[in-house]
């Protein structure tokens, strides 16, 4: 069934019209959008996630950078319009390469084109999928007693059991996890564990943690892709499964948790699609470093700066995070989740996780 894109086209044309009208009124053309910084995110009580506040940024042709940005925006929306017309889509990376032909509007890095695509989302309130733009990176892997039904490229539905129908690498989350593409059929599990590193994911799989503890294991692959976050959110809401986030113990890992649970600063305009407010942080916490006497590394100056920045981050203002971050700053140390192997390969599944899960009151076993 072909999607109706007229709404998207209307919003895109409104951007061009704004610039055109400014020029006709002899005003310096400009576009306004929410400021995408830490200082401009507010907690939305209705949605229980962090969204952009009232701060606005103007991209105006009064400065050279602003003018370039406007010109690129014109080219990008024209390109999106063409794709919609011709029923094509492109990856963000392809878009970056397409801009080679845009003369002055050419992007100098892919980061620029990615940011502009996000800007367009913020301006129009559309999602980048509406613009026929898709991410380069795929989602991550899943193992657990879960049956999903995916619409394959041949337009046939296929059921996949995420333990029986997959190898040890698990089920790969596609970049589109919306309902028309993916549905959850059965989920006989007690909770979801979202794991930062592949090494730890594989450890839990090898030790049979998913069957022993009735868990669905999701590999986050570092800072999780949009589809991974969306997948976790849907699973949490539709199957009422608690979500536990298991990462390294350093400021960057806390941010991974932040983007899963609260919404990321860069994508706060779509936090309600991506964030899982019920997600809980399992560890490794700075307290765990002390309690479990884990091997550590010294905090680098970047780590310290990141921790201090988190103390200012509105998302990390609760008692738990303030205490843990301050504790870590005073210790001056960080640790990895795989440091638990100090006590043997089974320690994490036999001792650490059961203890932590019991502490959090999640396991029904």
């Amino acid at each position: 069934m072909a999607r109706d894109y007229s709404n998207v086209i209307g919003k895109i044309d409104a951007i061009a019209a704004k610039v055109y009208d400014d020029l006709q009124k002899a005003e310096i053309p400009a576009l306004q959008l929410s400021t995408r910084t830490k200082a401009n995110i507010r907690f939305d009580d209705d949605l229980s996630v962090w969204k952009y506040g009232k701060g606005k940024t103007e991209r105006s042709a009064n400065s050279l950078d602003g003018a370039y940005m406007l010109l690129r925006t014109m080219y990008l929306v024209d390109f999106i319009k063409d794709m919609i017309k011709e029923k094509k889509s492109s990856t963000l990376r392809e878009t970056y390469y397409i801009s080679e032909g845009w003369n002055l509007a050419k992007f100098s890095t892919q980061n620029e084109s990615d940011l502009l695509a996000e800007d367009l989302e913020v301006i129009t309130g559309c999602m980048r999928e509406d613009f026929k733009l898709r991410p380069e990176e795929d989602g991550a892997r899943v193992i657990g007693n879960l049956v999903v039904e995916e619409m394959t490229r041949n337009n046939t539905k296929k059921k996949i059991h995420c333990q029986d129908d997959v190898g040890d690498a698990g089920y790969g989350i596609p970049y589109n996890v919306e309902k028309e593409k993916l549905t959850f059929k059965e989920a006989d599990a007690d909770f979801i564990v979202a794991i930062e590193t592949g090494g730890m994911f594989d450890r839990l799989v090898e030790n049979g943690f998913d069957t022993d503890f009735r868990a669905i294991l999701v590999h986050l692959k570092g800072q999780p892709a949009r589809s991974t976050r969306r997948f976790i959110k849907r699973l949490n809401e539709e199957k009422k499964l608690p979500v536990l986030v298991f990462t390294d113990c350093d400021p960057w890992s806390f941010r991974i948790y932040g983007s899963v649970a609260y919404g990321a600063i860069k994508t706060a305009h779509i936090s309600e699609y991506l964030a899982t407010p019920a997600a809980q942080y399992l560890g490794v916490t700075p307290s765990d470093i002390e309690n479990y006497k884990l091997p550590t590394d010294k905090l680098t100056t970047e780590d310290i700066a990141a921790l201090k920045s988190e103390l200012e981050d509105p998302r990390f203002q609760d008692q738990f995070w303030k205490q843990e971050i301050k504790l870590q700053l005073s210790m001056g140390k960080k640790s990895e989740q795989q440091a638990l192997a100090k006590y043997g390969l089974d320690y994490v599944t036999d001792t650490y996780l059961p203890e932590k899960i019991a502490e959090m009151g999640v396991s029904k076993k």
Partner: protein
Amino acid sequence: MANGNAIAYDLAKKQKEISVAEFFERNKHILGFGNPTRALVTSVKEGVDNSLDACEEAGILPELYVEVKNPSEEECVVIIEDNGPGIIKQQIPNVFARLLYGSRFHAVRQSRGQQGIGISAVVLYGQLTTGKHAKIISKIQDDRPAVVTELAIDTNKNRGEVVHQEIMHLDKPSGTRVEVSIIADYKRGKRFVYDYLQSTSIVNPHARIVFKDAEKNEHVFERTADTLPKKSEEIKPHPYGVELGTLIKMAKDTKSRKLASFLKSEFSSMGDRTADAVCDEAKLDRNLSPMELSRDQFAALHQAFKKVKIMAPPTECLSPIGETLIRRSLKSETQEVSPEFIFTASRPPAVHSGNPFQVEVGIVYGGSLPKDKPVKLLRFANRIPLLYQQGDCAITTAIESIDWRRYGLDQPSGNGIPIGPAIFLTHVASTQIPYTSESKEAIADVEEIQNEIKLAFRECARKVQLHINKKVRRVKTREKFDLITKILPEIAKKSAHMLNKPIPPLDKVITRIMDVVWIEDVVEYERARGKPVQAKLEDPTAQNEGGWIAKSTIMVVNYKNKPQKFNLYAVFPKDAVVGTVSPKPTKVTDTYLRWDLDNIPPINKIDIKFELAGLNKGDFDENDLYVQNINPTYVIGADKWEGE
């Protein structure tokens, strides 16, 4: 009493005239021969100073050849040859082998040497350290042979002794060649010799100097000016600067029979009224014979000089280098570091203790000069480089006391020599440079001189500052220029295309974005062809064939949303002659052109062109533009006209 006499007789036996050799031995450090490194530089310096003075006095463009040989580890042979007028045979022993002999000792004028010790000290040093005789070759006329003289100094009598004399052929119309063997440290001294000659060449752009080192490498310091500096004129001493002893001596030597006429004829700035005022102040009859004044009367006269207001001495006697030539020399000598800019400033003449003096400075900035080292100071007094005792020099003290941080250079704690990629040149010209010692290496801390140096550097630094500000503003506005000429039309085209509408007009948006009057200029040089250009530098009659013409193009665009009407000034160096100008200027002076520009409508442009002759390529790199009758903050590329 008889006993007392006996002691005095005893003492008298030991009292004798000390020989020049002893005098030299005791004072060699203050004469610049304190160690073997210094001895090498001082020897070259004395020879070069002598040659330059001789050439200039004879009105010859100096062509110097300097060679240092190094036959054994501690011995050097210093050779200095010039194309000067030469020295007659009879005078050779006096000039080269007699200390305190010279034509300039008593004269009040700007010259390199003042003490009359110079070259004869080198000859004496050579004789004392190596035992070898100096060799002088001199030719005074094209059709006569050169005279070769081997010279020794009788150190007891302070007289030159001709050891051997013969004639030879010398392949130049006239000139002098000096060869002296000395004990010196070539390894350490070589770099200083090079530095000294390079510095000399900077402040003597009319001289060509070839230096051949002991390794037989030839370094050529090319001439950058083809005219001799204005001859410095001899003036009479000014009463403020004269010492009591000199006053007494002058009174004994004068031909005047009356005190008043003695004052008027022997001193500068003394007219009838001032001479009378001085006599009244000293309570002396103006008809007294100057020969018969008592010591007390002289003292009263000397006191009276200080109390009576006397006009400053005449300053035409000074021969500054001039901003254009300083700039040209600096440019030529700093070519390899390709500096970003060179600025100069010149102060009007001033006076210290009755001696006229004048300060000129130059700043070379940027290029490959080191950013993290103290600024290099080039100090000059009467066109002589000062190489040693930088810390004791008034030039250094003056520079250190300026807060350079205001001008964008590093200066920890706000005093001391600033740090940054720059060279600071200072030249002090005076009839009497107050050196800290006989070796003439540093200028004494005289308040008037220090102040002038400070003022000159402040003026120069302000120019630097303006240039930098202008550049920053220009870069910013140029970005906007790109914006309105390239990007904005594209935005308009693209948005019109998406909406299937006609492309909107942009003029008004452009004036909103720019909101300035934009002035941009270029200076190009072209070889003058056809009729020779009149050269104005120094000699107004000199025909400078195949010289350069500076072609300046100024574009004025009104990016304000209202028509603009204002006056534009283009300032150019004094040494230039204005050629074709279009449109016709409203006013032309010898330093600027003025146009009264009629209403320029928004987005309209005016092109202005003018030509300058009589300059060398690079003398004038960027236009110095000013505006009047318009808010200067509206204008990019020109500053507010502050009057002449």
